[in-house]
């Protein structure tokens, strides 16, 4: 086992363990803070997939944005609504949890099915890319690749996403605006 494998399994273990803690903990705020550890470990796994840009984007958007937003939402919500949450019956097969349990089991089955069905080393598109040497190396400048692809091949999706974000921004500003004469 070389050092990369050890680090990979270490990160994977942290991601899984902290993810389990997020789901199982009764303490909501600690769950949110533990989610930060999960996101960070997943960012580390992205670095292993040579997606360092995605890893950093994950840190900026989720840790700097979404988590802070989650905490703010938590802080600003009233105590009564949080107490209401605790009254939900906690049995695994209760009416509230059954759909979630079914969906997660189905997803687990799907993942296992794919994992055992496919021989990842000999997929046709992977072997052809290896043969043509169309692979990204550790020393490559990955962000250049992303930039060129975003500005050529994926320009339309990028623009559509940006228009969607603009609409969200306008909507948020409208909601946050003070109501006139009320």
């Amino acid at each position: 086992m070389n050092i990369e494998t050890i680090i990979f399994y270490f990160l994977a273990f942290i991601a899984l363990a902290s993810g389990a803690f997020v789901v199982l903990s009764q303490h909501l705020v600690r769950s949110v803070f533990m989610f930060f550890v999960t996101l960070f470990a997943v960012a580390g796994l992205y670095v292993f997939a040579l997606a360092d840009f995605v890893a950093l984007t994950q840190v900026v958007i989720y840790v700097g944005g979404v988590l802070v937003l989650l905490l703010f939402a938590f802080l600003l919500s009233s105590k009564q609504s949080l107490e209401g949450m605790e009254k939900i019956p906690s049995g695994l097969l209760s009416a509230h949890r059954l759909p979630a349990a079914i969906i997660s089991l189905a997803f687990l089955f799907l993942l296992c099915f794919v994992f055992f069905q496919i021989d990842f080393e000999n997929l046709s598109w992977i072997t052809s890319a290896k043969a043509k040497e169309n692979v990204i190396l550790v020393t490559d400048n990955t962000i250049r690749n992303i930039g060129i692809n975003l500005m050529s091949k994926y320009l339309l999706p990028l623009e559509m996403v940006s228009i969607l974000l603009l609409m969200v921004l306008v909507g948020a500003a409208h909601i946050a605006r003070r109501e006139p004469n009320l």
Partner: protein
Amino acid sequence: MEVGKYGLLQTFADILKLIQKEYIVPALADKVLFTIAPVIIFVAVYLGFVALPWAPGLVPANMNLGVFYVFAIISIEALGILMAGWGSNNKYSLLGAVRSVAQMVSYEIPIGFVIISAVMISQTLDLQLINYNQGILAKQDILFLGFINVNHVGGFLAWNVFQAPHLLLAYVIYFIASLAECNRAPFDLPEAESELIGGFHTEYTGLRFAFIFLAEYAMMFLVAMLGVTLFLGGWNTPLPNFGSFKLAEYTTGIFWGIFWVMGKCLLVVAVQMWIRWTLPRLRVDQLMTLCWKVLTPIAFACLVISGLWRLLLF
């Protein structure tokens, strides 16, 4: 009342004092979060230094995403602050944490815009390459004010702020927003103990308090260094070549690089402290007005000018 001649030993006395002090954990505090929070704040800030270059060929981790990395890692500090505020289980701490996180998240927007406008001029996210392209070691053409080639002159003429003069305005915005980002005066609402009972660190004592404040001062140095690298030439010398006086060539090298970057950063930190003792504190609504209604539009204008600059002049 200083220790030593001219207060030279004051720092050491303060360190000893902070190490000796008792740890006090409030009885109702969330012990785990309360203990971890200062460490997270401290580590988040120090991780930022990994990507910052000190001299030609001297950078702890040479990565092609340097600027983005620093920007990303700084945003973790906000989480540590919320953790400290929540863990203290004290309404003043919690309100203080909310206040300073709201401030940091808001001011990240103008900072992001001006960083992008500087990156657009230097055309790379690699901090070391940004440094190279602001001096005589440049790997691409550098044009003073966009017209005069200064590849062999170097000095302050090759700095980003003089390559594209609107970046001077961008640097001013960066500086103001970075003051808010490290919770320094005139934006030091977290510390306003006379008006607002301090902030997220009200309950902290001893070494934990020291960690929070070390992080604040490290953050000051970090934003100063990032600003110096992006706008003020980084480790490049301010002295240009004059005819046969090759001042820029004499004063470029590893030790000169460390000297220049250290000098520039300490100068910026000195200005930050000078401002602290000069200006009164802003009220929280004035703080947000300044960010959203003044700095963000100007930063956006800088971004547009940078785009036009690249399109029209190159």
